[in-house]
């Protein structure tokens, strides 16, 4: 057992560090460090830079454009990336649909979709949840009925993150009749968002941002060739994707850099010498250290060939708890300014006076927004149920 980096790994870290220093646009890293939202253009610009270097998708197999990094190298990358303030690559294309396409898709599908995902030419969104199917996803009702070479899709998807930007959606639809058991009636479709019959309407979150959407399908024609794998086998593919999604959610590197920034800012506050504050910060830091090693253990197991199992639920559960604890510490540090809500002052064209010390004024909106993290991606209650059933056998 040992945790030291080899000389090669240290050289890799230097290489990553230098790349980020040279190539990461400053306007983007500043917004990331302040915890502000990015525009579509920011994400695309950064991903194109990464793609030049071939570093978009560390988790993909090399043959499709992955980096071929060891788990240690991925760990180094994540740490350096977050410390530098580089945004995470939007997950919908690279981390969610791509693994399904390269694992279960046809050669034509791989060719059609994977290069554009890497190059950020196409924006993807995830069409799983429906108004009446959240935690119980398999009960979904959006239907796809076969008509010649097409499916005709009708129904409503909701909570679709950044769907307003999306060119394509990966979507779970019901292809089996009502007599078929839910999990065996679902197919996995790729839907071009410009197809007639699709309406996208905004949903605003507690911080006032349009982060999610409701999407209606009225007689939308989707070619059968856009189905992944077999009809009625979509649930199996989606499950693979869900475990992939969960491993990314520990947020260790991100939480580390946010904690470091919190401590730096708190040093100038009278709070810095307050024992209650010191204990709260220490508690968060200690929990994060344990989580970091839990994640490393999981990654080490994966690198020896095991698929990420139900243990990844721990990463999601505790990762989001730590993230939310840091959010609350940020609000606490802001004190009275925690209540100020002046989002326009973070826009590039704002030229009035700033309200509140830098980096505090957005703390409460961020805290509100991040409540989503214990709800989405399989809520923390559902993750707990998974641990009960799949691990403890309860």
């Amino acid at each position: 057992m040992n945790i030291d980096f080899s000389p090669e790994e240290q050289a890799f870290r230097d290489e990553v560090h230098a790349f980020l220093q040279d190539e990461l646009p400053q306007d983007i890293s500043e917004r990331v460090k302040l915890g502000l939202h990015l525009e579509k253009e920011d994400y695309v610009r950064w991903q194109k830079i990464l793609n030049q270097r071939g570093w978009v998708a560390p988790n993909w197999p090399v043959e499709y454009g992955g980096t071929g990094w060891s788990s240690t190298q991925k760990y180094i990358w994540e740490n350096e990336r977050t410390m530098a303030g580089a945004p995470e690559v939007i997950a919908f294309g690279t981390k969610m649909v791509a693994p399904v396409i390269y694992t279960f898709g046809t050669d034509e599908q791989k060719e059609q979709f994977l290069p554009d995902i890497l190059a950020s030419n196409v924006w993807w969104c995830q069409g799983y949840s429906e108004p009446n199917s959240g935690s119980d996803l398999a009960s979904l009702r959006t239907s796809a009925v076969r008509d010649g070479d097409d499916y005709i899709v009708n129904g409503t998807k909701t909570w679709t993150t950044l769907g307003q930007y999306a060119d394509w959606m990966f979507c779970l639809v019901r292809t089996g009749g009502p007599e078929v058991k839910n999990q065996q009636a679902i197919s996995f479709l790729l839907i071009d968002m410009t197809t007639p019959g699709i309406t996208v309407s905004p949903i605003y979150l507690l911080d006032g941002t349009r982060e999610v959407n409701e999407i209606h399908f009225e007689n939308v024609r989707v070619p059968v060739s856009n189905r992944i794998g077999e009809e009625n086998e979509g649930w199996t593919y989606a499950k693979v994707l869900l475990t992939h999604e969960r491993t990314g959610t520990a947020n260790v590197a991100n939480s580390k850099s946010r904690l470091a920034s919190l401590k730096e800012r708190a040093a100038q506050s009278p709070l810095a010498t307050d024992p209650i504050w010191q204990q709260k910060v220490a508690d968060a830091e200690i929990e994060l250290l344990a989580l970091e090693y839990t994640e490393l253990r999981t990654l080490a197991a994966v690198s020896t060939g095991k698929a990420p199992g139900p243990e990844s639920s721990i990463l999601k559960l505790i990762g989001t708890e730590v993230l939310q604890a840091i959010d609350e510490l940020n609000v606490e540090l802001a004190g009275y300014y925690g209540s100020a809500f002046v989002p326009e002052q973070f826009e590039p064209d704002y030229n009035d006076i700033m309200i509140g010390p830098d980096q505090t004024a957005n703390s409460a909106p961020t805290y509100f927004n991040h409540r989503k993290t214990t709800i989405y991606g399989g809520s923390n209650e559902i993750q707990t149920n998974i641990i009960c059933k799949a691990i403890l056998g309860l």
Partner: protein
Amino acid sequence: MDFSYNEEQQMLKDSVGKFVSQDYDWDSRRAIVDSDSGYSSAHWKLFADLGWLTVPFLEADGGLGGSAVDLIVVMEEMGKGLVVEPFMANTVLAGGLLSALADSGQKEALLAPLMAGELQLALAFAETENRYELNQIACGGEINGDTLVINGHKSMVLNGGVAQQLLVAIRTSGKPGDDSGISIALVDASAAGVNRKEYTTVDGQRAADIWFESVSIPVTALVGADGGALSALQATIDRAALAVCAEAVGAMQVSLTKTVEYSKIRKQFGVSLSTFQALQHRMARMFMEVEQAKSILLMAAMAMDHAGGYAPRELSAAKSRIGKAARKVSQESVQIHGGIGVTDDLDVGHYFKRLTSIQYLFGSTDWHTRRFAAA
């Protein structure tokens, strides 16, 4: 021992409660929040007509009597509807300090129109660097003969954008950290050298940052003795803290009720959420939090009345405990609602936001825990 409201308090509760349930539905509130002024002047006039604006004041000043219990009766009901009209900021905070410090001439000029609903005031006390320690006030006031010149910056002045007159906590002698040397000046909000920037707060209310640049006023605009305002200021802020504690209790009750109701309606896996024991236990815990919050609120209000208005240890106990309850109840209500809990559309998230702000107003939960321990 008697925990029941007297007849007058029951009438007050019914009257505010009726207003909230009949005139303050969610769409009406939203329209008010989005309006230019951020509050409804028609509602404000109604508050005056119904006598609510006299509640925080002594009979000698023309008020209802100024008891802490009366105050929490009003605020708890307002909390149920997340009322944004500036009752707490204008009447309890600014009005409360006036009633503690002002001379009879100042009271006559200001308190009567305040209670009649014709005057908006704000108390400017917070400063960027001070957190919650009032003796750290630095905003400078320099007395030269008959004039007082103010220079400095005040943060997060509740109701500061619409206020016609400002009560400004300034330092006329000594240095930050000294208990003496803090004074209150009455400044016309339109005076030369006063610059305001109004903004919304995360909970749909309004506040302003205010800059004073060589604002020159007559020395007679001091409210109370020069340099001796700290204890009255702390007592007034404690009273406002009690008010938001009561507001929190009202808001928590609604959050709990809405969560329990929703859990019965929302179905997943073919059953209501309310059938999952994991969620049942958490709602039971929310209920216990609300009850504990209510108890400690009554304790603090009665202690304040008993002590002639100021009971720092008991107030801090209440603010600390209610802060913890507000955190727990509001977070759980969002979580149990799932996705719609984090949307702007649904009221539950707005209760969560107000319950969050209250935790950090007039001393955070931890600040009051510390103050309790030291008392």
